């Protein structure tokens, strides 16, 4: 277990003063805005522990401050590094996209991100903004509980990043079936991997290693 935990941190390493935007760091737009060697003024973000994070993509929230204060909508994007939440259709400004030399561009409304302090989760039955806390149910499940009424706010449906729903997946010719993948064939034994393979394939090693020195 320890080895895999050590080697799991092989994800993208961002420079220390990286300024996060609404784009993912591996997209072309993010790389254009943050070229290597760029140093920008540091933005101070209120530190929130990962287990205390309450807002997820797909949640219904109400905007408390700004142009669209008092309106409720769904969260489309969350940027934890900046404590940002992008809400669908609210806090919009207008811009032109796909501009060419001949074409002026399409005039669209684009949402600006909102800070966590300008957002509040909504009680599912009341549909009013509430303060939320993480608590444990009697079964031991960790849930979000609204402090005013005590109702549980269910987590939004978690979708995979590629939009695939595992229950509706039809296996292709090269895919392994679920039962075969979860089938446990491992029998712990005091033989190394190489020895087990040699036994299975009937390889007998009769050569003797020459004397070697380790230093």
């Amino acid at each position, binding site marked *: *277990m320890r*080895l*895999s935990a050590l*080697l799991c941190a092989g994800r993208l390493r961002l420079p220390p003063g990286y300024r996060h935007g609404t784009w993912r760091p591996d997209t072309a737009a993010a790389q254009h805005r943050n070229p290597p060697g760029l140093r920008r003024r540091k933005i*101070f973000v*209120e*530190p929130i522990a990962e287990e205390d994070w309450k807002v997820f993509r797909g949640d219904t929230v109400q905007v408390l401050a700004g142009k669209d204060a008092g309106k409720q909508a769904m969260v489309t994007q969350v940027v934890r590094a900046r404590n940002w939440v992008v809400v669908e259709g609210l806090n919009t400004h207008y811009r032109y996209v796909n501009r060419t030399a001949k074409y002026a561009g399409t005039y669209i409304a684009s949402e600006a991100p909102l800070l966590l302090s300008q957002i509040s989760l909504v009680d599912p039955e009341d549909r009013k903004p509430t303060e939320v806390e993480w608590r444990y149910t009697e079964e031991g499940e960790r849930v979000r509980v609204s402090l005013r009424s005590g109702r549980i706010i269910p987590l939004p449906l978690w979708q995979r990043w*590629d939009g*695939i729903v*595992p229950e509706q*997946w039809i*296996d*292709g*010719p*090269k*895919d*392994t079936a679920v039962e075969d*993948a*979860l*089938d*446990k*064939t*491992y*029998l712990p034994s*005091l033989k*190394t*991997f190489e020895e*087990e*393979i040699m036994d*299975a394939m009937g390889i007998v090693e009769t050569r003797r290693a*020459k004397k*070697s*020195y*380790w*230093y």
Partner: protein
Amino acid sequence: MLLMLNLFHKNLAKVEPFHQLKFLHTTLSRKGLEEFFDDPRNWGEKNVKSGDAWNIKQLRGKSSEDLHKLWYVLLKEKNMLLTLEQESKRQLRPMPSPERLEKVEKSMKNIDLVVREREIALRLLQTGHEKPVPGEWRNDFLGRTYWYTYKEWPIPWYLNKKYKKRKFYYLPHVNHFIRLRLEKSLRRRVRRQNLEKTRQKVLERKFPHLAVKSQS
């Protein structure tokens, strides 16, 4: 290039042009080269559907034989995808579904991890050591201490001219530089700690509730 080599000239083959690759004979498998290419039904597609990568949890329940066979299956698939990638670069077209390559590499890395975990567990049981190769802490000629892993040699150390030339000790004049290095590292550590303290102060100024929490 590969396609120009007419390996199937002995058979009367029907030739079909495809979008992605040029004319290729569709005969029976000769010399096994067809394994470098995808299923002919997928040729010319923009997106090819593929399942998820193998999880470590799923792989931990598999026997050594299964892992061994899976490794080679994944290797062949990786070769096929790499040929596809190279051919798309040559034809200046986007590769269909490049995430397949990432999934295959991730699965192979997971298999390697599982095998290494089992090996380490067995070694810990039998010998009590975690590392496959023994080693020790040694000093180099600059006064730095580092972990030296033993290497396998055919001759003992007192006959090894290359090894005897290496210096695993330092002379007294190096002590001055060790001290300078120590001072530098201490200064760096103090600078880092001061930076964290100033950052914390700025955060408390901007978000006063953090200061209240740290006091209480």
